[in-house]
């Protein structure tokens, strides 16, 4: 081998290898790869006569590489945009190649990979379904996590192909918790409102029919009393529905500074009769008279009254209910605490729904309409606040209304009756 050809080999082989690597890396077209292979093959043969031809080929390859690099840059920018777009999707997305290796996962999916505790079950499900999708199956699995928070996820996987053969699998993890919650609320609302309105009306109809054929004055008296009870029940439901719709419509109502101690006193006064009948003590912890809320006094009294009404209904005879208020400066907290039966944990997030019942039989026995806590939530929401509930079955419940504080002490007017 001559010195000239040796130099050409020494310079040409690394260049060709570098070009090959670069081309493969950019996944360039078959033509470029083919030329690169030819060049490498010819260089390895290394006859001097071909060196000039090789220089020409390498020059052509360099131009092709420049072109490929430019296109690769464009493709890289497009890929970055695509990755950002897919990462913005709420559903988790995992893409696997035909060997089962994860080639892409978006941010929500990353959360489940390498997870611990309940979420490790989701990771396991992703792996199982991906393996089945790689063998050609389209599969779906519901994964319920008790958390907390409790969640329902749907993991689905399907095979990917290029029309001729499988090239991998796609796994999608969808969180359907909120969708399920909304479905349950809608379904239960329709069922409950039908029951609440139809039951007393149906009852009155049946009682009236029985009354028509009855001569015994004693029985007539009992039937009439029952009809009156059912009529009052329907009336209470309609009153609460009207109250709720008034509160819902009252978002833009005039806001005045309202002394908190008057709100509590008025609500306690309205509940006193019901409490007395059950031997329940209402302990009003008198707040500072300087404490005010900016809002609608009637609505605020209604909210506290509904909480007291609930506390009395679900407390044992002879127990006590504590009503208090406090402030941390920017906000005022109104609390109603009982030591009653408490609310099961699973019901805590649903108790503010209209007509939702924790214990249907017991709730109707107590004469509730199922709208009290819905009214409370709307009032607090109208006042830019929130309702907090802390409850343990068998220990009792504390509802706390947290609302923005008013401007300070106000001239106190005598509370209106009722």
């Amino acid at each position, binding site marked *: 081998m001559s010195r000239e050809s040796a130099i050409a080999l020494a310079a040409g082989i690394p260049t060709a290898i570098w070009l090959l690597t670069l081309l493969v890396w950019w996944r360039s077209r078959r033509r470029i790869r083919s030329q690169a292979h030819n060049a490498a093959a010819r260089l390895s043969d290394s006859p001097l006569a071909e060196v000039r031809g090789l220089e020409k080929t390498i020059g052509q390859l360099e131009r092709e590489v420049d072109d490929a690099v430019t296109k690769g840059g464009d493709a890289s920018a497009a890929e970055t945009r695509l990755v950002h777009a897919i990462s913005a999707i709420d559903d988790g997305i995992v893409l696997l190649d035909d060997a089962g290796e994860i080639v892409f996962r978006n941010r929500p999916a990353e959360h489940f990979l390498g997870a*611990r505790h309940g979420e490790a079950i989701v990771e396991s499900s992703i792996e199982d379904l991906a393996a089945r999708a790689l063998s050609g199956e389209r599969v779906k699995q519901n994964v319920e996590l*008790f958390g907390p928070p409790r969640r329902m996820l749907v993991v689905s996987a399907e095979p990917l192909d290029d029309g001729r053969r499988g090239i991998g699998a796609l796994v999608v993890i969808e969180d359907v918790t909120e969708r399920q919650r909304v479905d349950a609320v809608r379904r239960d609302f329709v069922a409950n409102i039908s029951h609440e309105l139809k039951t007393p009306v149906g009852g009155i109809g049946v009682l009236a029919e029985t009354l028509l054929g009855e001569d015994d004055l004693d029985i007539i008296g009992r039937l009439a009393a029952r009809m009156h009870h059912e009529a009052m029940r329907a009336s209470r439901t309609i009153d609460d529905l009207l109250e709720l719709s008034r509160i819902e419509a009252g978002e833009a109502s005039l806001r005045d500074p309202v002394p908190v101690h008057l709100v509590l006193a008025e609500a306690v006064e309205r509940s006193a009769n019901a409490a007395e009948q059950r031997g329940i003590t209402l302990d009003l912890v008198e707040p500072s008279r300087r404490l005010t809320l900016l809002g609608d006094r009637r609505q605020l009294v209604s909210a506290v009254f509904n909480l007291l009404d609930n506390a009395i209904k679900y407390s044992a005879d002879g127990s006590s209910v504590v009503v208090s208020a406090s402030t941390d400066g920017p906000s005022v907290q109104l609390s109603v605490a009982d030591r009653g039966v408490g609310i099961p944990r699973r019901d805590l997030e649903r108790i503010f729904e209209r007509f939702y019942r924790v214990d249907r039989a017991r709730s109707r026995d107590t004469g509730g309409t199922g709208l009290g806590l819905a009214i409370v939530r709307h009032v607090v929401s109208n006042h830019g606040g929130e309702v907090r509930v802390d409850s343990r079955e068998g220990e009792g419940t504390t509802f706390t209304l947290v609302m923005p504080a008013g401007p300070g002490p106000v001239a106190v007017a005598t509370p209106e009756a009722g």
Partner: protein
Amino acid sequence: MIEEPPSEVRVQFRDELDGVVREITRLAAHVTEAIPRGTQALLDGDLQTAQAMIDHDDVIDDLSIEIEERCYKILTLQAPVASDLRAIIAAIRLVAEIERSADLMVNVCKGTRRIYPTELPPPVRGLLQQMSEQATKLFTMCMDAYLEQDASLAAALDDIDDRLDDLHADFIQTVLEWGSDEGDIQPAVQLALIGRYYERIGDHAVNIGERVRYMVDGWLPEHAGSARVHATRPVWSDVEAAGGPDV
């Protein structure tokens, strides 16, 4: 000084150990989910969910056996030593503790069937809910200690378990009072057993914590007792000098 890259055997061992840890995490996940799910089934008298959980125990058993076999294979083929050996032995012990905890939740589900359709009073329901939350918390913490190799957290589990023990004591008292008021002691006995299952899950979480301490720094509770035995046992040469042991 340039650090030498780990050998291929070492890399393979780490990969296999990572695989075992991942599988143990999944096994424990079944328990952390089973505790609140089983409790909800108990509180709701939901026999369908209770049965599904009893059936699901086969999956947990199968996974436990699979992990144990992986550990034995690593022991046989890799012959690990020192901390690597402790990690594998701890893994084998952890699998047993987790699997037993899953069995205890199966027992809770069987108890659900036995007390059906008894309506549980609010104080009993509240205490069951609290014991379930505390057992879940302990199990979650012991797995955190394992995955993060946190010996301090593992050591704290015993004290945290005291809260579950207190709840258990309150629960037994409440259940027995309720049983005597009702005049039917059978559901109360079943509930007392169920309370015991939660308390035992807490104990298993504490055991896991002890295994984590063993894995991290070689500490074991038995070592303290063993040291006491060695301190009080007479040395053989002393016995011989005194004219041999009394028979």
